[in-house]
């Protein structure tokens, strides 16, 4: 654990995460003893072929799945240890985690601004404050002019920006992005990746991005590779990130 992390500036500390599906002959180890830390303001990439366990790791960190073994600390709070969750998952998710997926998954009957506001109102932000911050975020992400449009009226890139704004709305400690550029062209894809970097640095959030897109790897502070459920630092990036 480096100094920055020990000083309490970690967005995520995950130790020995293991996920096994099935039992006996049908047992599949999706994740083997994965350990990962992400500092606030840091953006890391998770690479690897399909079925390597990237999404499993991300959903475990996002408290969507529970691991069989391991310990998870998010923003200094231990959320999972000794086979059990230690927090109210939904409350924790809405306060400390932001999600972005391959598809934007915006609520289709809400406008762009309302989608962002909703994340905050769910988290008990006053309506007026939520409205102002939603507009600020949309402006910040370059889609302020589209605030009153329904998702069906937005392009894929615009939808993804709104999804990023929604993920940022509650100032989360950690943003988890699962192939957020898969549905975008290379130009738009790079823009979104750079956006994540900007967000990580300016909003002081840790960002983990699962991606297949090797063209934008320079955007990331550190890169990890996964294969057969094993997580390791990517050698070719010659980085010294913590990967066990």
């Amino acid at each position, binding site marked *: 654990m480096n100094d920055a992390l020990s000083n309490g500036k970690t967005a995520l500390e995950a130790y020995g995460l293991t996920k096994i599906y099935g039992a006996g002959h049908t047992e599949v180890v999706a994740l083997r003893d994965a350990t990962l830390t992400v500092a606030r303001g840091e953006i890391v990439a998770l690479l690897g072929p399909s079925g390597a366990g990237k999404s499993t790791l991300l*959903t475990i960190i996002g408290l*969507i799945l529970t691991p069989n073994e391991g310990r998870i600390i998010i923003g200094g709070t231990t959320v999972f240890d000794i086979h059990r969750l230690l927090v109210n998952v939904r409350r924790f998710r809405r306060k400390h985690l932001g*999600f972005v997926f391959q598809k934007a998954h915006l609520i289709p*009957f809400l406008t762009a601004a*309302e989608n962002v506001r*909703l994340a905050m109102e769910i988290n008990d932000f006053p309506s007026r404050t939520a409205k102002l911050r939603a507009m600020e975020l949309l402006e910040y992400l370059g889609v302020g002019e589209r605030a009153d449009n329904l998702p069906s009226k937005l392009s894929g890139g615009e939808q993804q920006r709104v999804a990023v704004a929604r993920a940022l709305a509650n100032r989360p400690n950690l943003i988890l992005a699962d192939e957020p550029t898969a549905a975008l062209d290379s130009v738009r894809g790079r823009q979104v990746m750079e956006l994540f970097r900007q967000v990580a640095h300016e909003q002081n959030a840790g960002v983990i991005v699962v991606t297949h897109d090797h063209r934008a790897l320079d955007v990331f502070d550190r890169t990890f590779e996964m294969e057969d459920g094993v997580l390791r630092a990517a050698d070719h990036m010659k980085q010294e990130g913590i990967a066990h």
Partner: protein
Amino acid sequence: MNLASRDIRHSFGRFVLTTIGLGLLLMLVMGMGGIYQGMIQEATLLVDRIDADLWVVQKDTRGPFAEVSRVPANLENRVRAVPGVLSSGGFVSTIIQREWNGRPLRFTLQGLAWPEDRGQWLPIVAGRILGRAHYEMIADESLKLPIGEKVRLGKNTYTVIGHTRAMTSTAGDPMAFFTLHDAQAIQFDRSGEAIRLERSARYNRAERIDLGRTVPQMIERGLGPSSGIPALGPPDVSAVLVTLRPGADLIQVRSVIAQWPDVSVYSSDDQRQLLVAGMVDKARRQIGLFRILLIIISGIIMALILYTLTLDKLHDIAMLKLMGARNGVILGLILQQALLLGGLGYLVAYCIGLWVFPLFPRAVIIIPEDLWLLGGVVAGISILASLLGIVKALNVEPSEVLS
């Protein structure tokens, strides 16, 4: 932020059509109650309007609304002599169906005890009450007989001089009011040939008896009109209506008349009960069962609609859960839509009902108690119907967003 209203705004057309469909279904439920109330009102309308204190009818019968009742017309004189009685009058009621201007003219003929009763208690909406002892009639406006119209009934022609509104008999037929004598003349009208045959038969019978042979005038009388024969009474009436003096003891007057061996006596409340229990009871049960069926069908349809609406939103609900939304937010989305759908459907039912029910041939009466009851039932079925969707929504895993 109200998610239910946003969702409705997004798929407004579908919501409106669904609401109208549900509203029409609820209108049927509302209408069934209205038909029942209409039946009760029509059944008891005359008793309520006449508002007699006592009804004197043929012995051991339940009165003219339940079965055939015949009492002599002069019974009213005997009744009038009872201490405490203010007035009494004959009651004649019969159904008439004739052809008029190429269309069937069916109504309930009602006799008024002229001259005391000229129809002043009737809801006259045009024209006037009876002003002459003969040949005038007050018709309900639903008969579509214009004022001044002349209608031939039996051997006489009657002029329509007034219109009532919503005066229908227990069977739902419009009513027409005549003086009691005119009503009897119409009711007991016989053709000239029938009268001649009757007189001839009477003459032959008188000729065959000793008295006829020894008193020739008697045979002569037999050839004359019935009214000229002292032994033959005037035509019967169905009942005699009694109004008591102010402060008179109804029970006492009733007990006096009840002692007479040729009549039975009922209060207006008794007559009302007989009508409701006898004529309306089966219809009430039939309509009640039909209403229950319609409510169940409405509930099932609402449940299906709400379930389908929830299925459409499962992905969004999973996303809401992933964002950390409380169950209350998700329940609110489904339940508010259910209640809004039910509430607006109810409003549609009421509004369309207000417009459609008056077009029905028989009275459809919506009373506030029925409206409140149905409102409660709609709220109940809205909540119950949404349960299916709520259970489905609560079981959605946030991970379904990823699928």
